[in-house]
């Protein structure tokens, strides 16, 4: 029965949110797919035009509720570029620490949702257990587990708490031990390899042409990490290796898994280095001007890819226009390409590996 459309969503365990993937099947094989998004559209770009620059941070936190700090930071960075202010050095280092802690928490949330996608419920329980470690650290730092409202235009809200480096050290040491257990469970599992290897292929040329960014692009073997390609904050001074899939071939679900999984370790390294290298005292926040005119953009390496904010000010204390470029929004355009030719039973395994966050996709 060719041309038979199936709705996977808007209420489906695969979606991890509210969106609809229509797939056209011929027997068991997918011949076409069409993502339908917008169920969670909250009109952020419009709302932000009537709020002061700083107050928009509350909104950008909720763009992706599992990766709040990275999104608020991208917005603050764009506003700083527009206003032309410089964050004090210690503020930049604190930002790096918070960004990487948030990236770990976000990737662990992805791991937690990817496990059940493959029928592996232990993955959910383990990853959420370890995610609490990092949410606790973030709570120590900012006062909240989620939606922290931590970055400020010009710096961060507060200094690090006392003894924070030691606490990070302890949590990360514990986490790295757990990572070895994860490796045994995921990498050494034959079933896991069978479900992910050679499934959901995306070539590097296609990925670039369709605007796929972040870990999904690096899984295709393209060495693009904006922390290296367009260094912001103090990433230039940190010694880390962007995680790229080197084993050749087009990026499949397994490559995407490996890249994200290795990024967890890399982020741990960055956090420890940053805590060591940062100046032990000093200003962490600059005072931004109340009104600003001009335009600025900032692109950062978000947990899911390239986050780009384009902010225009017209001399008022509110932005004239804010444009949010969400990596998932662009990746979603390429999902039909990834899905075509695969089996219907693999849709969940493929879209889980892409790491969809509906909040930032629908804005």
């Amino acid at each position, binding site marked *: 029965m060719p041309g038979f459309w199936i709705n996977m969503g808007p209420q489906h365990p695969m979606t991890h949110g509210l969106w609809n993937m229509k797939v056209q099947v011929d027997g068991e094989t997918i011949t076409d797919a069409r993502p339908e998004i917008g169920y969670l559209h909250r009109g952020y770009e419009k709302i932000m035009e009537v709020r002061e620059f700083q107050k928009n941070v509350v909104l950008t936190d909720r763009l992706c509720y599992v990766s709040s700090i990275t999104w608020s930071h991208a917005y603050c960075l764009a506003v700083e570029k527009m206003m032309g202010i410089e964050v004090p050095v210690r503020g930049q280092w604190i930002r790096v620490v918070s960004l990487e802690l948030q990236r770990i928490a976000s990737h662990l949330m992805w791991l937690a949702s990817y496990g059940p996608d493959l029928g592996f419920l232990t993955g959910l329980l383990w990853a959420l257990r370890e995610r609490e470690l990092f949410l606790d650290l973030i709570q120590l730092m900012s006062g909240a587990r989620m939606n922290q409202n931590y970055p400020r235009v010009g710096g961060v809200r507060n200094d690090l708490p006392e003894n924070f480096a030691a606490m990070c050290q302890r949590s990360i040491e514990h986490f790295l031990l757990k990572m070895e257990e994860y490796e045994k469970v995921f990498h050494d599992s034959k079933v896991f390899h069978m479900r992910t290897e050679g499934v959901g292929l995306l070539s590097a040329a296609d990925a670039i042409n369709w605007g796929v960014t972040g870990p999904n692009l690096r899984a295709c073997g393209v060495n693009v990490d904006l922390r290296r390609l367009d260094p912001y904050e103090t990433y230039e001074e940190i010694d880390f290796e962007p995680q790229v899939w080197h084993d050749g071939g087009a990026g499949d679900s397994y490559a995407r898994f490996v890249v994200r999984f290795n990024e967890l370790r890399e982020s741990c390294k960055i956090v420890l280095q940053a805590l060591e290298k940062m100046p032990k005292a000093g200003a962490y926040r600059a005072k931004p001007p109340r009104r600003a005119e001009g335009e600025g953009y900032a692109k950062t390496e978000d947990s899911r890819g390239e986050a780009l904010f384009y902010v225009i000010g017209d001399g008022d204390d509110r932005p004239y226009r804010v444009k949010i470029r969400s990596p998932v929004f662009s990746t979603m355009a390429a999902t039909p390409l990834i899905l075509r030719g695969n089996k219907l039973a693999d849709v969940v395994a493929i879209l889980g590996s892409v790491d969809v966050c509906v909040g930032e996709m629908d*804005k």
Partner: protein
Amino acid sequence: MSVSAAEPVPRVSGRPVAGIEKEILAQLVVALGSKLKKAETVRAGLVHGFIDRKDLVAVATYLKVTLGFEHLACVTAVDWKDRFECVYHIENYYNGCMVEIHADVPYDDPRIASLVPLWNAANFHEREAWDLMGIEFDGHPDLRRILLPDDFKFHPLRKDFAQEVDRQYISRRKIRGGK
């Protein structure tokens, strides 16, 4: 599997090239000449170019084919009340340079050429610009609303789409007894 390898994988260093923005600007000015109304470097790795909407495809083709700008990051539409402006962020993965192309679009005839033939990434972004700002992209394969429902009648990001602009808080000035 539907994997095509129509284009070769670009060489990627993963590192920015210092001073690249001046070089790119010089190349743009030489090759495009009168098509650029204004062009300038803003900061390291960022070039601004202002063009007319009829030159968009020529400029974008030159950027992609000759200069190797392979990544279309973002398509933005801005409502300046008397005109629209489409802003394209086009990025080079090899040297980390970003070119920001500003194309003017008249208010009474909001249409501009689509960049989907060059970058498929433009597909969703142009649909979003049509949905929220009402810019029509000529040559787009599937120009439907994307975030809002199909039967929605307005383009809400336009400045004449009313929204509550009164401040929803008591200002510090007011607390101190001012207006």
